[in-house]
């Protein structure tokens, strides 16, 4: 609905009776069943000192009362038991579900009050005598007035907020209907009018609308907390070099001029200059380039790059929010505002609906004043019945119910929906744009040369201690063929060149071809000084081919935009059957390509993981990032893939299209119900009884339609 967030004041967190407060949160991405819960809880509770550990399967978290035990000890223990675990930064979490609970409580209050008042109303409807009816009305008023005052507050607050900003949102007619219905009924009860009261209608209205609001809010907050979780997972840290030794600090707290130490395999937390050391830098996150680049003292480096082979001392130039991310920040910010202007189906429906409701209510009042020659109470009654009946119980549920169902279905398939309008935008995409490195490929390398067993054992022996992607690929290949790495002595890694070692008094080498004197990119030099060229390919995601084929079968053209060199891009495009592939695209070019496509009227879905994709992710009509993506890319994306597979991309589009159809069906149902009921209300035939039945049936119909076909 249009209400941004009900300005409800959060209740204080209720104390959990008798439970030990958890002070540590672990993220357990792989747990899914009762055995996992038991395994994790037993492992953690068996650790000496841990007071209590409880798993929350819905959030895939473990809450631990640690008793001073270090998180790393727990993570190691869990790893031995076969569960992957990561630590959350508690500062980035916490206090998220309080307004969720608040809405739930309001829902409960209005629900129970509604049932009680309904019970009293049934007596009146079935013909209670005058005094009894009067008494019942008074009792109903006693229950309904405080209940509505409490549970209707999210609507009243949002309506007041809209009115004071001179806008009209859906909460204005809702509040008007509730307040008018209640006011007239209270007046009637005290004045002893022999007329039907609207207490149950006011409460039912509040109750059903709160359900919709709750679903909507829950969907949003779960997406928000999941995004916060992803951010909390990799709160970047840095090793600051100080006189007394190295200190671990948060990367955001670093200042320009400070010197940090970076170990091989670390992602650089800042922009800076290398003071000491040489290494190979993996720049794929920033440029999409799949080949590492050599760097040594004096070279500038940027945050987001990964040092592979050598330790470095770096002087910070820019840290935190000032890093090279800023280059893309303007692009992203502009695109974000554009995106937030996207009006969802519910918003568009509400925009038409809100004025119509007011006009109809006023028209009914004027008409009946004229017809009854000035009977104000009777006219007000009809006007209220029109307001109550047209009030969008079903409309309020139509969209949130569907998106809740679809979002949770996608979550089970390994997709996190971050934005509330993401599903609707995803349903509209008509082309899919992929990034290469880290998206279609895993970002790791794969050995393509068929090395002999002896060569592979030799190469693996050299590669064993190195974090360079080439070394990792060689070790993986050796492990896959069951070949044990050769034991070598005196292994040294020479950053920017490769690895060398001693075998029987002669030097053997693995590294850049020009260092060894061979052709190609990488080579191995044996002890007899002969050498062999090694070619490496990129490791394609296991279902990339299948996913691209499925997308094409669904009639969506697939495009490849990569920052990498033309040759690997062309090779990959051929493997996957993509005709439209572009290489050597800078981040700005990628963003411009997306803009141009949008200007042509296309609605691209961007799937990418690097900083170089951030701009295009934000500009595209909808966007997906894998969970291995950088922070900034995940923030810019509407959906995040939680598994290593690409298949959910195709699933998500199908699910989003289905969801959009459902939403339209639901809005259609709500409109249909209004077409039938408004004339009845206008004719003055709608009693509170009829209103109650109509409201319930339409709400239930819409919810059932949303949940239809749930597997």
């Amino acid at each position, binding site marked *: 609905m249009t209400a941004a967030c009900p300005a409800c004041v959060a209740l204080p967190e*209720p104390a*959990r009776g008798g439970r030990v407060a958890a002070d540590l949160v672990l993220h357990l991405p792989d747990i899914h069943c009762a055995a996992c819960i038991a395994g994790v809880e037993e492992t953690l509770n068996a650790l000496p000192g841990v007071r209590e550990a409880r798993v*929350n*399967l*819905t959030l895939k978290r473990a809450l631990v009362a640690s008793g001073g035990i270090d998180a790393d000890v727990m993570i190691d223990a869990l790893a031995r038991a076969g569960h992957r675990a990561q630590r959350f930064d508690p500062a980035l979490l916490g206090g998220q579900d309080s307004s969720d609970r608040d809405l739930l409580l309001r829902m409960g209050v209005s629900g129970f009050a509604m049932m009680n008042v309904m019970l009293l109303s049934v007596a009146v409807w079935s013909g209670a005598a005058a005094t*009894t009816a009067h008494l019942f009305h008074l009792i109903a008023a006693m229950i309904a007035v405080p209940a509505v005052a409490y549970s209707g507050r999210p609507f009243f607050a949002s309506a007041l907020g809209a009115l004071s900003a001179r806008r009209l949102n859906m909460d204005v007619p809702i509040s008007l209907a509730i307040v008018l219905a209640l006011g007239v009924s209270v007046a009637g009860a005290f004045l002893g009018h022999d007329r039907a009261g609207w207490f149950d209608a006011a409460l039912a209205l509040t109750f059903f609308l709160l359900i919709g609001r709750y679903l909507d809010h829950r969907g949003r907050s779960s997406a928000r907390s999941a995004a916060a979780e992803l951010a909390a997972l990799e709160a970047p840290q840095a090793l600051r070099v100080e006189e007394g030794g190295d200190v671990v600090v948060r990367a955001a707290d670093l200042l320009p001029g400070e010197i940090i130490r970076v170990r091989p395999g670390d992602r650089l937390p800042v922009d800076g200059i290398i003071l000491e050391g040489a290494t190979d830098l993996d720049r794929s996150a920033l440029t999409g380039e799949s080949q590492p680049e050599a760097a040594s003292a004096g070279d500038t480096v940027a945050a987001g790059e990964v040092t592979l082979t050598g330790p470095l001392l770096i002087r910070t130039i820019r840290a935190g929010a000032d890093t090279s991310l800023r280059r893309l920040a303007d692009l992203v910010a502009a695109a974000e505002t554009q995106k937030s202007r996207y009006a969802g189906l519910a918003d568009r429906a509400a925009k038409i609906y809100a004025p119509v409701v007011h006009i109809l209510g006023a028209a009914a009042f004027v008409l009946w004043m004229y017809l009854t020659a000035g009977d104000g109470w009777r006219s007000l009654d009809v006007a209220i019945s029109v307001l109550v009946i047209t009030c969008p119980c079903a409309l309020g549920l139509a969209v949130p119910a569907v998106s809740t169902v679809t979002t949770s279905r996608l979550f089970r398939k390994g997709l996190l929906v971050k934005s509330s309008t993401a599903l609707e935008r995803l349903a509209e995409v008509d082309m899919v744009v992929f990034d290469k490195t880290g998206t279609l490929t895993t970002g790791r390398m794969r050995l393509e040369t068929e090395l002999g067993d002896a060569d592979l054992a030799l190469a693996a022996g050299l590669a064993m201690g190195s974090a360079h992607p080439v070394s990792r690929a060689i070790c993986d290949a050796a492990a896959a063929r069951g070949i044990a790495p050769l034991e070598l002595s005196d292994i040294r890694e020479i950053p920017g060149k490769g690895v060398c070692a001693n075998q029987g008094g002669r030097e053997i080498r693995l590294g850049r071809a020009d260092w060894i004197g061979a052709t190609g990119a990488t080579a191995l030099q044996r002890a007899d000084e002969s050498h062999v060229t090694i070619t490496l390919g990129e490791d394609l995601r296991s279902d990339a081919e299948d996913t691209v084929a499925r997308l094409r079968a669904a009639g969506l053209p697939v495009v490849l935009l990569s920052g990498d060199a033309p040759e690997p891009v062309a090779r990959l495009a051929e493997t996957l059957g993509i005709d439209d592939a572009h290489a050597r695209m800078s981040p700005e070019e990628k963003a411009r390509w997306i803009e141009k496509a949008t200007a042509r009227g296309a609605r691209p879905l961007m799937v990418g993981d690097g900083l170089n994709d951030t701009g295009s992710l934000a500009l595209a009509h909808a966007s997906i990032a894998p969970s291995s993506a950088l922070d900034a890319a995940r923030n810019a994306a509407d959906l995040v893939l939680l598994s290593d597979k690409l298949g959910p991309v195709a699933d998500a589009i199908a699910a989003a299209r289905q969801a959009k159809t459902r939403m339209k069906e639901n809005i259609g149902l709500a409109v249909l119900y209004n077409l039938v009921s408004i004339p009845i209300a206008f004719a003055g035939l709608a009693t509170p009884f009829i209103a109650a039945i109509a409201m319930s049936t339409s709400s239930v119909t819409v919810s059932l339609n949303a949940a239809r076909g749930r597997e």
Partner: protein
Amino acid sequence: MNVLVFLIPVSVGLGLLGLGAFVWTIARGQYDDPEGARQRPLDGRYDDAPKR
């Protein structure tokens, strides 16, 4: 008529009782982990004796 004197407070009281129970379940965090609640009955750890 007289019977209403008892029945109405009883009916309202029952409603309040239900509301109280609902508030209690929220405070105890019983809606925090619906997925876990679905799986925990299959867990055999507390079959012989309940958790302390």
